[in-house]
């Protein structure tokens, strides 16, 4: 605060302080008044001008702020006194940053540094400007200048970091020379001044490591400088890593052994140790050890290069060492030495040793840690190497061990849960016959209820014993629904989770499952409500939004979708805006390794596929919302530079470097990625078998990423296609020769984009045209379009717009006057919609029903087509006076008017059919709906089919009687009927929100 005041640019503190106080308390009007008064006294003061600029920017007047900034900048050149204090410059900098005009601030600092030489404060300001601009070369040059002033270590390190950033984030050209320069600078400095900061040493080592000079790095570490690292194991870890990279495996293994002796629970270190012992470079050959955000759980290893004799020797050495760790570490919770046995046995098996003791190691680990919640995730990578027979054997043995150890009820319960989780992991549930599956599920529900009392005295905030059982019950119920298509199972899955949440409302696993189940059941408001209950904010928006955004993009809840997208984008943009300042903070606090990390992290987020999608979908949503008014659509398009802005987002380079930061682990089994929902297809055991194996996960990830790239390209074309379609349609007049050049230009661009659009659906342009023509004439079935059907309809719409202004021959069923393409659009949309409407069941009885397809038909192809029509019928006489909007264009040819008219009629017919369906469902009596939902569950005494789990839960709730504990009270408050009513209400809201308004105006025009 103090630095802001004082005699700022010759103005006394008492005049400046009230202005800043008003700004800080957001009283901008008052601040402006004070500043204006001050400006009359100091009319030429760049500082006061910059203050006024700051206030104007905060008041939402960016243009005035910018002009004041430029005036202040001008003032700087005539007032050298102002330059030497940082007040004016830093204020200009703040405003420019908010205005997105970093260049102005930079040029101010550049000018100041040129005028006032050797002022460290100003040079640091300039360095900061270059950090904001990501100008690594200029950063380096400025830092070197600062270093030369006083030989300070920190400025040298600033320069070295800037060099490293050029190598990490640059093209890779000249990297070697740059690193050599960094090394030279450091060596020279060390020779005269040595190094004094541990972080400086880490940078020095990393510069050597980047050049693969591992032995030199080792020498540095073992020399005097090594003592800068106070914590011994930190030094050892680096030493081990360098030795391993230098392929000196025996020495590296010895070092990792030392680390393990003092940190016996360090699993990563054990993997380093065993890798080095077996001369396996898998952990080191990839450069950095762990570049992936979500690395695969399987630990890669290479073993075949060792002779059997050597292998045996090394393994027995490892076993011996692990045995020693066992005997020296008696702490109850040290898991690593026990899991180490499993890893050793796994390596034996992978090497092909017949007599491994993997099973024994499993059982030992279970006996000791089977009650821990993390048991299954600890052993996941070992489960992958078991044969089917061993899987069965293992389960049987675990059950026996658990039964023999079950003196403590909590531990027995936890052991059983672990066994169930392992069964789930194996995918055993998908192999069971239906009755066996139901039986298992009933047992789990009973187990849950029987053990509720164990949690009676727990704090309500604490995790209850057995909570996982309800997740498992839900998973099985969803599977039963998939296999039998009985609605009751799906409803029961929802009820089970709602029951669990009424007992303890903090269980995020239940909430996520509900988000997906409600989405599948067209109860989007409830899905969104539970998503909100997860309290997702800040960085979790990047990792967790995939649970809701993909469904919401297809739902009619546009207001909520808009909130989601806006919230996410503003979080990301805010971070991008402040990231450079945080990087500078790391520079100032001499935490150089964080500097590089921060810059790379910003890149990671900036290339996020989700961020790119949100930047595309947010304006597309606006276009959808405004589609009934062409003028409003044009306003939106203007703000997007007629769609060009979004087109640039999907450049080949940005698509190549896409990042996928979302956390897929928390997704339910039936939708492992947003693109997959097994429940939409028939039961297929093979589809889900091995779902948790690395190979299938890798494949899924690859598919997802490839698909995301295509979708991003396709969506980025959309706004420009809409703009060009409107343009082509509006230039459509019989006497339009004057517009020919313009028209041709637009038309050529539209065709080029259509070719790209077709490619992104997987077809060359001419083939895509053939498909669309074939579908409209009934010669080709819709099935060929697969899940891209909406994109195909969009294609037909834009194809028609292109045809309107094209000199190319009309499409096959045209009559030479170009209306053929109108007919094609009408037929494609009409036919597909009718087919959907014919097959559509009420949402209440048909989970997974494709209501969202109808939403998309209305909000995309029909809406875009309506814009083309609006553009055609809108006329603007040469005088510029507008005619009535509803009046059809008198310059259009008769066949064209006829085609447009029948197209309007067709759209109205399509919309009419959808409205009828919606109204029938909205107006259907609630009691009937309630009956549809509840009757499958209300089958007293049933021993098979849906309803059994609910019966167990209800029986427990009623036996809770008048118990006054928290759990009994919560159970009494739960009601299946209430849940059913909530679903009905949410579905009704979904249906009501789906107002097919975009073409209503057209229908009016037509009538």
């Amino acid at each position, binding site marked *: 605060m103090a630095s802001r005041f004082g005699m700022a640019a010759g103005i006394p503190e008492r005049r400046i302080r009230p202005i800043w106080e008003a700004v800080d308390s957001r009283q901008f009007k008052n601040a402006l008044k004070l500043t204006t008064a001050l400006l009359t006294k100091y009319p030429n003061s760049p500082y006061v001008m910059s203050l006024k600029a700051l206030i104007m920017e905060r008041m939402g007047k960016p243009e005035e702020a910018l002009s004041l900034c430029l005036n202040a900048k001008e003032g700087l050149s005539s007032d050298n006194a102002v330059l030497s204090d940082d007040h004016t410059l830093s204020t200009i900098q703040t405003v420019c940053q908010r205005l997105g005009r970093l260049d102005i601030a930079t040029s101010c600092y550049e000018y100041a540094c040129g005028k006032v030489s050797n002022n460290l404060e100003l040079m640091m300001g300039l360095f900061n400007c270059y950090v904001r601009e990501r100008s690594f070369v200029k950063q380096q040059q400025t830092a070197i200048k600062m270093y030369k002033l006083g030989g300070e270590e920190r400025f040298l390190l600033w320069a070295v970091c800037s060099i490293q950033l050029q190598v990490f984030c640059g093209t890779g050209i000249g990297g070697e020379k740059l690193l050599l320069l960094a090394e030279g600078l450091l060596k020279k400095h060390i020779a005269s001044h040595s190094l004094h900061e541990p972080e400086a040493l880490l940078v020095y080592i990393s510069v050597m490591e980047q050049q693969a000079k591992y032995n030199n790095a080792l020498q540095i570490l073992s020399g005097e400088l090594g003592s800068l690292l*106070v*914590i011994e194991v930190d030094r050892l870890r680096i030493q081990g890593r360098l030795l391993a990279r230098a392929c000196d495996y025996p020495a590296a293994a010895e070092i990792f052994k030392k680390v393990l002796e003092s*940190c016996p*629970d*360090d*699993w*990563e*270190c054990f993997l380093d140790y065993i890798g080095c012992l077996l001369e396996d470079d898998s952990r080191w050959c990839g450069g950095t050890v*762990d570049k992936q*955000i*979500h*690395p695969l*759980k399987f630990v890669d290893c290479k073993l075949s290069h060792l002779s059997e004799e050597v292998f045996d020797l090394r393994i027995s050495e490892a076993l011996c060492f692990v045995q020693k760790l066992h005997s020296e570490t008696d702490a109850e*919770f040290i*898991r*690593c030495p026990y*899991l180490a046995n499993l890893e050793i046995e796994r390596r034996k098996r992978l090497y092909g040793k017949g007599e491994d003791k993997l099973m024994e190691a499993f059982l030992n680990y279970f006996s000791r840690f089977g009650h*821990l*919640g*993390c048991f299954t*995730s*600890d052993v*996941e*990578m070992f489960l992958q190497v078991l044969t089917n027979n061993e899987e069965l054997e293992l389960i049987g043995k675990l059950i026996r061990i658990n039964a023999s150890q079950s003196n403590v009820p909590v531990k027995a319960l936890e052991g059983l849960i672990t066994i169930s989780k392992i069964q789930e992991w194996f995918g055993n549930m998908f192999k069971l016959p239906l009755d066996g599956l139901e039986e298992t599920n009933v047992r789990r529900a009973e187990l849950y209820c029987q053990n509720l009392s164990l949690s009676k005295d727990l*704090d309500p*905030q*604490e*995790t209850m014993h057995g909570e996982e059982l309800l997740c498992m019950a839900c998973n099985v119920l969803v599977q039963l629904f998939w296999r039998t298509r009985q609605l009751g199972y799906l409803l029961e899955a929802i009820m089970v989770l709602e029951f669990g949440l009424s007992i303890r409302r*903090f269980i*995020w696993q239940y909430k996520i499952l509900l988000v997906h189940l409600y989405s599948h059941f067209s109860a989007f408001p409830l899905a969104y409500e539970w998503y909100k209950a*997860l*309290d997702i*904010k*800040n*960085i*979790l928006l*990047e*990792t*967790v939004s995939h649970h809701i955004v993909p469904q919401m993009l297809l739902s009619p809840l546009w207001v909520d979708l808009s909130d989601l997208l806006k919230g996410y984008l503003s*979080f990301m943009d*805010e971070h991008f805006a*402040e*990231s450079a300042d*945080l*990087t500078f*903070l*790391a520079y100032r*606090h001499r*935490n150089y*390794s*964080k500097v590089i*990390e*921060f810059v*790379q*992290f910003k890149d*990671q987020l900036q290339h996020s596929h989700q961020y790119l999608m949100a930047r595309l979908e947010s304006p597309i949503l606006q276009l959808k919302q405004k589609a009934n008014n062409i003028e409003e659509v044009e306003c939106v398009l203007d703000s997007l530079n007629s769609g060009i802005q979004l087109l640039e987002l999907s450049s080949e380079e940005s698509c190549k470097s896409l990042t996928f*930061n979302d*956390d897929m*682990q*928390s997704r339910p089994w039936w939708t492992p990625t947003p693109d997959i929902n097994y429940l939409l297809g028939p039961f297929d055991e093979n589809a889900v078998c091995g779902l948790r194996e690395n190979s299938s996960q890798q494949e899924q990830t690859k598919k997802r990423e490839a698909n995301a790239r295509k979708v991003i390209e396709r969506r980025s074309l959309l706004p420009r296609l809409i703009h060009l379609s409107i343009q082509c349609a509006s230039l459509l007049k019989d006497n339009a020769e004057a517009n020919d050049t313009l028209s041709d230009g637009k038309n050529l661009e539209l065709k080029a984009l259509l070719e790209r659009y077709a490619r992104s659906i997987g077809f060359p342009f001419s083939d895509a045209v053939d498909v669309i023509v074939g579908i409209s004439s009934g010669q080709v079935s819709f099935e060929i379009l697969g899940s891209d059907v909406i994109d195909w309809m969009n294609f037909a719409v834009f194809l028609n717009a292109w045809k309107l202004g094209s000199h190319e021959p009309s499409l096959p069923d045209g009559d030479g006057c170009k209306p053929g393409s109108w007919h094609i659009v009408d037929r494609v949309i009409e036919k597909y919609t009718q087919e959907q409407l014919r097959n559509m069941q009420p949402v209440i009885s048909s989970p997974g029903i494709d209501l969202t397809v109808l939403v998309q038909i209305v909000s995309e192809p029909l809406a875009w087509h309506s814009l083309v029509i609006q553009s055609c019928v809108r006329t603007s006489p040469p005088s510029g006076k507008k005619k009535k909007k509803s009046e059809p264009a008198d310059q259009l040819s008769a066949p064209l008017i006829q085609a447009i008219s029948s197209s309007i009629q067709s759209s109205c017919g399509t919309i009419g059919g959808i409205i009828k369906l919606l109204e029938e469902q909205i107006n259907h009596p609630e009691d009937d709906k309630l009956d549809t939902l509840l009757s499958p569950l209300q089958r007293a005494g049933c021993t098979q089919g849906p309803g059994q789990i609910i019966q167990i839960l209800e029986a427990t709730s009623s036996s809770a009687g008048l118990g006054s504990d928290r759990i009994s009270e919560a159970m009494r408050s739960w009601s299946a009927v209430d849940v059913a009513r909530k679903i009905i209400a949410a579905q009704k809201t979904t249906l009501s929100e789906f107002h097919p308004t975009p073409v209503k105006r057209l229908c009016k025009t037509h009538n």
Partner: protein
Amino acid sequence: MTTIRRFCCNDLLRFTPVNFDHLTETFNMSFYMTYMARWPDYFHVAEGPGNRIMGYIMGKVEGQGESWHGHVTAVTVAPEYRRQKLAKKLMNLLEDISDKIDKAYFVDLFVRASNIPAIKMYEKLGYVIYRRVLRYYSGEEDGLDMRKALSRDVEKKSIIPLKRPVTPDELEYD
């Protein structure tokens, strides 16, 4: 099975399962990054097999003279990794750094007065209630300022409990 290492930016993309927990606050980015930029030795993460994040601790060192102390801003452990004394391990690490590297006098932390399980845990770890801070949490709930003396505070002066509660504006640091 705990590899404890410095928290890095990518961990922000990997700590989701830990932060789903309703008692774990997800702060804004500048908060995490300021801690990483200024006190990287006070921000550690514990990783289990499969590179799963088990929990993390964030803190800082601040103060003047005999108030020079380590501060625990947040410590959290994912539910499946609880009851393994991981929080203790993380706390000990921060205490060690405060004690041996930064030569601080004590370590302190704030806890909701209603969070009895946490208070009990900190007491087991050697922390005492130094003072009550009235309406510390969003102007509603009281907070307890708990402290543990380090070796530099030979006479354990830093942990002699205050006799009266204080208000948030009386606190020396945020």
